[in-house]
């Protein structure tokens, strides 16, 4: 029985899911919010983006269940001897990628290669020659890789695509089956799906899923025998690194925004509701905070955390726990330094709300200040919170890369897009060029950020009526 490890960020992510479920339940009961979220769903771009985000979110979740494996009992140990646990902490994702961890090479290799990138002294037929070494694992199942490799890759890719398409077709059938009742039978439901005549644009969603399946299929088919995205300097699979980086990006994107919320909402509502000196003090606080260039402020805080962690090295059992606490504290720092913008918005909205009739009525009935703020004002500023949260998600992912480059981001031992880009910088100036780490980081990061941006735009359009008019639309000429 493995010993489960609950890292700080894991726990917060679990809590986040519980909170999201609670929110979803609340949305179901509230007609207004349900209508707004329905608008988000009806936006094809936002729906497709949401699906991409869900896929990345699934990777994050798999990578957030951590445990330490039990070591086999020592020979001759008593039956009731205490179980010892491995010093490395694994996640479910690590378990799924166990084969990739075993396929570690000794140095750089190109994507899908069977040879290393650099020539090494080898012994061949009793003679010492300098040649490209055969990889230990990439393409190792081939007897004559020079001839067999491409046919093998093509065959595997084709079967991967075929399976991917089958899965996509299964999804389409499932969707049609679910829609069958409203569309008069399975057949007409399928026809409506293809012609995009459904209420929610399921065609766009299914197309996104199909593209994802067609991409994932070949990768899965190939990754058992090749390094699909090559290997890095120490021979680690780049694909694994990119997948592990997804969690880091997600953690930063979500936790850092959530960390701003208590300050921003509580202080913003207080400032707007009480006005007077409370308002002055809170305004002073956030003006002071925002007057320091953000990167500098974060750097200063992170340096302090660094000093603190260096002083207390025995707080953690494993290296992972240490780097996890570091990223957790980084999120807290991003939250403590980044609440000014949202606080300003909440304050302005509260100033407007407190003059409205329903608040006056509540005051007239003798409802206390705390209750008015909690029951009447806070729910009415939540749309601002929601919009800001989704908008800042993508910004924070981009920000993480910059911070890591500056040296105040996540721990170097932790996989992150910033770390990958940082290494890629020197790799791009090598000869021959090592482009695959960079390309992998680029592909994953742009997909994630783009999806987050599109989803955020959808949410903003649905919850902020003013933003909707800025949406680009091609007006069809009347026929």
């Amino acid at each position, binding site marked *: 029985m493995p010993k489960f490890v609950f890292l700080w960020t894991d726990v917060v992510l679990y809590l986040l899911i519980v909170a999201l479920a609670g929110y979803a339940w609340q949305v179901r009961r509230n007609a207004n919010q349900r209508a707004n979220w329905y608008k988000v769903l009806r936006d094809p771009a936002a729906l497709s983006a949401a699906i991409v985000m869900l896929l990345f979110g699934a990777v994050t979740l798999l990578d957030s269940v951590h445990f330490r494996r039990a070591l086999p009992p020592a020979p001759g140990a008593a039956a009731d001897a205490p179980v010892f646990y491995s010093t490395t902490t694994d996640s479910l994702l690590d378990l799924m990628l166990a084969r990739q961890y075993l396929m570690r090479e000794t140095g750089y290799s190109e994507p899908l290669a069977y040879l290393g990138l650099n020539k090494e002294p080898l012994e061949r037929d009793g003679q010492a020659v300098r040649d490209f070494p055969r990889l230990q694992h990439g393409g190792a199942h081939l007897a004559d890789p020079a001839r067999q490799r491409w046919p093998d890759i093509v065959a595997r890719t084709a079967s991967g695509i075929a399976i991917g398409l089958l899965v996509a077709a299964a999804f389409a059938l499932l969707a049609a089956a679910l829609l069958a009742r409203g569309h008069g039978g399975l057949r007409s439901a399928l026809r409506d799906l293809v012609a995009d005549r459904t209420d929610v644009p399921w065609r766009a969603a299914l197309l996104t899923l199909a593209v994802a399946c067609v991409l994932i299929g070949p990768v899965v088919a190939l990754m058992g025998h090749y390094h699909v995205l090559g290997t890095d300097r120490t021979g680690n699979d780049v694909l694994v690194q990119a997948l592990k980086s997804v969690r880091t990006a997600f953690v930063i994107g979500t936790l850092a925004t959530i960390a701003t919320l208590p300050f921003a909402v509580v202080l913003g509502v207080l400032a707007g509701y009480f006005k007077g000196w409370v308002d002055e003090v809170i305004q002073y606080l956030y003006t*002071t905070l925002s007057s320091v*260039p953000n990167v500098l402020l974060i*750097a200063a805080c992170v340096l302090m955390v660094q000093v603190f962690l260096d002083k207390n090295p025995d707080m953690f059992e494993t290296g992972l726990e240490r780097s996890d606490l570091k990223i957790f504290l980084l999120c807290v720092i991003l939250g403590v330094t980044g609440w000014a913008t949202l606080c300003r918005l909440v304050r302005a909205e509260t100033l407007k709300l407190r003059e409205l009739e329903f608040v006056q009525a509540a005051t007239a009935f003798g409802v206390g200040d705390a209750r008015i703020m909690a029951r009447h004002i806070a729910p009415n500023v939540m749309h601002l919170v929601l919009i800001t949260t989704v908008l800042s998600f993508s910004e924070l992912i981009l920000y993480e890369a910059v911070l890591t480059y500056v040296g105040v981001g996540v721990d170097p031992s932790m996989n992150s897009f*910033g770390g990958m880009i940082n290494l890629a910088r020197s790799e791009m100036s090598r000869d021959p060029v090592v482009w695959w780490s960079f390309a992998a980081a680029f592909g994953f*990061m742009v997909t994630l950020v783009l999806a987050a941006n599109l989803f955020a735009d959808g949410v903003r359009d649905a919850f902020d009526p003013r933003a909707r008019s800025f949406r680009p639309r091609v007006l069809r000429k009347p026929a």
Partner: protein
Amino acid sequence: MWNYLIRRLGYGVLILIGVNLFTFILFFTVNTPDDMARLNIGGKRVTQDQIEKWKAERGYDKPLYWNVKEEGAAKLTETIVWERSVSLFALEFGRSDARAAVDIGHEIQSRMWVSLQLALPLFILQVIASTAFALLLVFFRHSRIDFWGVVLCVLMLSISALFYIIVGQFLFSRLFKLVPINGYAGGLDAVKFLILPIVLSLLSRLGTEARLYRAMFLEEIGKDYVRTARAKGLAESIVLFRHVLRNALIPIITSAGSYLPYVFLGSLVFESFFGIPGLGAFVIEAIGGQDFAIVRAMVFLGALLYIASYVVIDVAYTWADPRIRLS
């Protein structure tokens, strides 16, 4: 207006005091002068004597916040927090903590011009390029150009600035060998070192800015005076340039102005990537070397510039819209 400016500056001083206290508490409570001494002297065995000597040399040999040994007001003034704060307000930044102990004030003065050479053209070009692109999109609104232009903006703002830098350096410096990869030279030679960072920085922010400006223009374009202008029979281009642009200046100034402090502090990442010895690179070096004196000085300078830029923005409002009176 003068009244307003003086009030604004007074508030600025208050903010500076807050910033200064905040950074001081942040730095000195977690990292006491003894720790700093140990870190900077280096080596395994550091004697208390060495630490005392280091502290005396740098002026860290006083109590942090409250000097019990002194009498009266000196209880407050004979402390590190007082001395450091007063010297910062006098713009005397002192020496850095590292062994080289460079004169921070001198460094800032010499690096400031380099940063300005990079940032000022960038700032101006940024505003022009974003406005031009946004106006183009607005001119062709409700057409394919607008739609795909916005798609391009979203795509561009989803790409990290680091990608622009790495690809740009790879293409233009390594493949085409048009400009040097990094470095800096004074005089006219600076142009060939600065052109690539400027162009790349421009590209990396174009998506965000152009989309923002487009929204601002569209907000203006729905207003009554635009309809009146069109009803008079003015051409669409004149409506856009003479009426809409003029009125959208206010939000543009706000948005561009918030970027103003960074003009002086330099784009941190771009300077350090391209080896340009400006203030941004200075900060990154200080962070890497854990030199708190420099970081504190730069935080203070950044806050100062922020306040200054807000005053500049306010004055710019009155220029852009004569109806605005500062009071």
